[in-house]
């Protein structure tokens, strides 16, 4: 199995396991799932340190986009708390 296949398979297993576990615990907030996915993506990509430099650059850009999404979720939560929600 090639390095890219292992990387994709690791992410697929991690995402599916997360969705299954959170669903089993009755989690019904989409932002919780998304946050878990972002953390898993960043950790798995960091662990695959020997990916091709070109692939790593592209995946880093994807990481920035996902982290941006995560920051939006955090900002919305902060606004919600400040408004006393």
């Amino acid at each position: 199995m090639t390095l890219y296949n292992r990387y994709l398979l690791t992410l697929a297993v991690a995402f599916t396991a997360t969705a299954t576990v959170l669903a089993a615990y009755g989690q019904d907030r989409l932002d919780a799932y998304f946050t878990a996915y972002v953390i898993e993506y960043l950790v798995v990509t960091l662990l695959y340190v020997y990916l091709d430099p070109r692939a790593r650059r592209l995946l880093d850009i994807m990481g920035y986009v996902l982290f941006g999404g995560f920051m939006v979720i955090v900002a919305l939560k902060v606004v919600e708390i400040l408004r006393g929600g």
Partner: protein
Amino acid sequence: MGGLPAIIFPMESHSAYARIGIALLFSGAVAAPLFFFVAGSIPLTALALSSVLLGAISLLLARSLPRVPPQAAQVLLEAGLENLAALLEELGVEAKAVYLPSALAGGRPRALIPLHANPERPEVTRSLPGRMIVEYGPGPEDLGILVTTPGTAVMPFLEAPPGPSSSELEAALARILVGVLDVATSVQVVQESGVVTVRLGGVRFDQKDLWIYRVLGTPLASVAAAVVAEGAGHPVAVHAEEHAAGRSTIHLEVVR
């Protein structure tokens, strides 16, 4: 197709990654609103969202695949090595090659093949000119051929020259063999009294029995020897190789 669509759907890459990526991206993008608004299921929506993410990642990986397929690269490599083998056979050269670091081989790590077989390894103490036939010592028989090897070609993939310690050599070899060439899944380097042992796991490379391998070592050994020579800053010779069931062990001798 140009601009953003060309970035998302690369025309040149009809690889399995691109096809899987497009399938996952579109199925996830269609399923997510259906699960959210129609079925009202957050876990299923999250699953569709993960499909979108995996699709986007697959498309990014498709864009970074090498433009030359691995099979084509192997054919080109074997053709080059067979030409070199024919040249060496004509010259009657049978001595084992010594891999020189870039500091001793005119700026690029290359392999020196002595024209006269000697029981002693050739001693190279000064930088050799970047020519094909070189004098590496003061004696009349100290003539050799300086050749480019697979190890030479992969060296630019390292961002910085490796250090001499086992961990630094291991990191450099893993970056090349696992990350760039994707011909092994694990690399272990052990150094003991002038012998560097490189153990490779999950090897995916057809090790044919070419005559040239007796002189240069297999391409895997060539890469290992070039990286170790560059890291150690000394000439390195392939002492022995063992290949069995997806595992390779390469013993390299550092010539000091």
